[in-house]
């Protein structure tokens, strides 16, 4: 991953409640950059990325889906479409939504100018991996149960 991208993603953590973020490539969901706790490894993101890309394309409309906000228990996952990639932010549900929206807007604006063709990709998903999740990693802030 490029340091510039990671440094930009790290600025999202200025917002209280943001636990990390990552960027996936449009069209195939390959991971382009990440700033996440180690418990969410590249193999997990390799499965998550393509699904996020597909979610952004399910609404059949003249205007493509620009943002998705998903709520899972005490967490939320926000996705922002950029021209060539998608910015994804994992945060506690209690995060200030307006502050998060602004932070996502600023970061995506910065990443808009990035040349993604020169960014090394993370490993592609294992072709033999099951189509549905085979394991769940409990992620609650800093506490982890494998």
């Amino acid at each position, binding site marked *: 991953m490029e340091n510039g991208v990671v440094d930009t993603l790290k600025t999202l953590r200025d917002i209280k409640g943001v636990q990390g973020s990552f960027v996936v490539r449009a069209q195939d969901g390959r991971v382009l950059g990440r700033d996440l706790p180690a*418990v969410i490894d590249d193999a997990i993101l390799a499965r998550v990325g393509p699904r996020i890309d597909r979610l952004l394309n399910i609404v059949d409309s003249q205007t493509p889906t620009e943002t*998705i906000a998903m709520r*899972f228990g005490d967490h939320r996952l926000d996705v922002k479409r950029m021209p060539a990639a998608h910015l994804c932010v994992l945060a506690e549900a209690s995060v200030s939504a307006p502050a998060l929206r602004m932070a996502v807007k600023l970061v995506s604006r910065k990443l808009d100018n990035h040349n993604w063709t020169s960014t090394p990709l993370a490993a592609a998903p294992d072709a033999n991996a099951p189509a549905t999740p085979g394991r769940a990693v409990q992620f609650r802030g800093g506490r982890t149960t494998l």
Partner: protein
Amino acid sequence: MASETKVRLLTSATPMDSPEGFKAMLTGVTLADLIQMKCMSGASECLRISSSGKVGVLQFSDGQLTHAATNDLLGESAVLELLNWKTGDCEPFAMALPQSSAIRRAWQSLLLASAQATDERVHSLENTRPSPDRATVEQGGNMTETPRSNSVSVRLSSDGQVLTSAGAAEDLAAAAAYALHMANQIGEYLGLDLFKGCELRGGDLRTVLVMEDNGDAFALQSDTEADVVGLRTRVGL
């Protein structure tokens, strides 16, 4: 407080010159967003809200919503009325209101009450809107077709079957069922708790999917912000 006093409160206010900080003009922000922002930042100030000739005031003290007034209402009822205003302007004002709070409930509770009221209006709209089947019967009987708004909704069972729908919801049903699968898988991979719902936005179009306690999923798609605000709050977004 007499209505005369209320009017005086609103008209005697003078614009405040903020000594420091940024001045900003934001669009696309709801009043609920502003209240949340002010309360979470521990603000102590007064805001003057104007919308289509109507005027209202919100006062914050140490991050709590302590007073509210419109031309006709005071306190919590004024807050709920203000939250119904969908467009308008907001500016800081210097104003002296009584120290004792006219609002007993926490700001979160007021936002939730407003969202629930909006949600009930949406459900009421859904129930009064003709179903696709009924529209066909009406057309067959040479009755005039009722004009429909740009909102469609669908309720899905846990196995993806359409239970009820309003408007041309076939595409929405398929999108909602697919989104449910994708979101559940994303949540499981990331080790997150159960998926509660999501909102997709593109241009003016908003699509909100809500998981209900009985396992059903309710999806609403609309080009009107007011239609989805209640559902979004229910999801906790």
